[in-house]
């Protein structure tokens, strides 16, 4: 992957915390030396449970183009049921990465031209002590495992800083477990 | 340092008789005070002053007796209307014009 400029599109549901997750990755990227980070949520239509998208652009230099990502390097899907509702691979570059929270086995998916990484973040998060359905920190562990972007340590400290008043250890534990258990492959 | 002198740049005025110009010449009827009916005059103490409060041109003094500055009183009659004891009467200016001649 070209590490000068990385475009990550997040697919989640309103209220699931995709924006917070993208913000944590943005913060970690900035700390690690990416001068340009731009995170833009879907505008105006955020409703709880509805499919939502968030764009995250990471660049070594300042970003001047704030328009939505058209050809992502990575798509992150916080709920496998979204595969039926949204065209999550739209514009995804050939060889691009799909990070998917799913209870199903990696082998049960067939995405041509893309690299798929899966983990059952919903179960892992409960195991880490989070309430059922809190998946936005665990998924960061899967993303790092699949894409090797910024290093898990930096992301873990980003998670703990963001959640400093809301169970920081449990949230970072979810990311750590997810990092270990993510199945990534071609 | 910038442009100041704010008062000159806005519509800013001090309240007081004459803010609307020499309005005494507008008067058709003149307010005349009957001290026998006026509350502060009768009681000889600071009281009432409804006329002073209501005068839109600030031409009535808060004194015993209240005085009316005829230079600026435009004769609107609000004081006469508001006076609780009807101590102020509006009198035709023509009458005073004749007096002035005499």
């Amino acid at each position: 992957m070209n590490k000068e400029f990385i475009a990550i599109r997040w697919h989640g549901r309103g209220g699931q915390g995709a924006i917070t997750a993208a913000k944590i990755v943005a913060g970690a990227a900035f700390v690690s030396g990416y001068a340009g980070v731009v995170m833009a949520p879907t505008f105006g239509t955020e409703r709880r449970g509805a499919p939502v998208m968030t764009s995250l652009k990471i660049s070594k230099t300042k970003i001047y183009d704030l328009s939505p990502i058209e050809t992502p390097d990575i798509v992150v899907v916080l709920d496998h049921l979204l595969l039926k509702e949204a065209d999550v691979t739209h514009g995804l570059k050939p060889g691009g990465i799909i990070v998917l929270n799913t209870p199903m086995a990696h082998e049960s998916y067939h995405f041509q031209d893309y690299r798929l990484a899966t983990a059952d973040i919903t179960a892992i998060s409960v195991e880490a002590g989070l309430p059922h359905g809190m998946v936005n920190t665990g998924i960061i562990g899967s993303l790092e495992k699949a894409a090797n972007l910024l290093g898990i340590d930096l992301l873990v400290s980003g998670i703990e800083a963001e959640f400093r008043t809301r169970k920081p250890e449990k949230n970072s534990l979810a990311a750590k477990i997810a990092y270990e258990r993510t199945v990534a492959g071609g | 340092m910038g442009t100041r002198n704010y008062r000159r740049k806005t519509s800013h005025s001090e309240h007081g008789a004459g803010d609307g110009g020499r309005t005494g010449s507008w008067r058709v009827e003149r307010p005349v005070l009957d001290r026998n009916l006026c509350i502060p005059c009768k009681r000889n103490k600071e009281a009432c002053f409804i006329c002073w409060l209501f005068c839109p041109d600030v031409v009535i003094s808060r004194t015993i007796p209240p005085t009316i500055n005829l230079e600026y009183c435009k004769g609107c009659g609000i004081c006469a209307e508001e006076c609780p004891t009807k101590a102020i009467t509006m009198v035709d200016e023509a009458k005073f014009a004749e007096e002035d001649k005499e």
Partner: protein
Amino acid sequence: MHIIENGNAAAALGVKLCRASVIAAYPITPQTPLTEKLSEYVESGEMKAEYIPVESEHSALAVCIAASSAGARTFTATSANGLLYMHEQVQWASGARLPMVMCVVNRAVGAPWNVWNDQQDSISQRDTGWIQIYCADHQQIIDTVIKAYWLAEQVSIPVMVCYDGYILSHTFMPFDLPDQEQVDSFLPPFQPDYFLNPQDPANLNTVTLPDVRMDVRGELAHGYMEIRCLLQEDLRKALQTAAEAEKRFAGIFNRGADPYIEPYRCDDAEHVAVGLGSITYQMRVCVDQLRTEGIKIGVMGVRYYRPFPDEAIAAALKGKKGVIVVEKALSYGYEGALMSDLKSALYEHLAGTGSLPVVQNFIAGIGGREIRTDDLTQTLRAAAKGRVSKEPVWIGLRL
């Protein structure tokens, strides 16, 4: 210290750093998170200010007008129909020469109802006698809020700080958060020349006659026309004060540039794209692409829209073959308002020199229509080749 936040937070942090003492606002998308943030600061005690909830935008500005007349440093913010509802008080604030700051989080106006970005709202307030500044990123938002207070208080004219709804207001990016001490040294406490005071009573903005008149002291007092003319004169002079603000700011914060315009790759350019707000940064990406194709093009962001920096704009565009004005608003029935203003500046300063550029107008992103960078690049590419149309051309229209 750099932080990553959205544009509304950048504005709120700027207002907090400026120690605004009275805030009155009515929530409207996409401005809402800005005023929510401010009410949180006031509630938590982080900010020592009165937050006055009101029942409308008209009241919000009325409260600010009263508070500013009494010597407070005030703030309000709105968008779209909220700004239109405020319009009567917008005119009042500038006529009363009150140095307040308002953020306009740019949004399309109804009808039909729409909550997304364009700039019809603030452009429609062009002639209200306010200073209007447009921001292209979050650093500009927070810095402009700070500079705006200084400028407003120097010239006794209110300032609108305009930034694109959603595209800037809801997008996260890093920016430098100035220190409180630095801001305090840039912006001293508000010391009005006159404020409402029972010991020194005054009539403010009562009926003011068409002609001059004698006041109670027997001095000649201005008529309405004198007061309005002074507003115009002072607005024009405010361009110099804006340059001073920029210089002062750069001296303390080590950043700043041309206060009026923001040119990019314009020096050797034959064509220059011009716009207001975040689209001018997006056009930098187009310009970089077109340069690789051998097209000599640059882009110029107009930061000050009122007072209009006609001289700086004409100087920057002198000798260019073509000027391409891309706007998110329209003076319906003619063309983009910036287009007309820009042509008037070129006529004034370049007519007769034989170097008047061809000027073209494009309308983009109305009601939040996505402005694809490829489409924008294609527009500039075509416009650089020759005149596309005499009328404004709508980009991305599917009619």
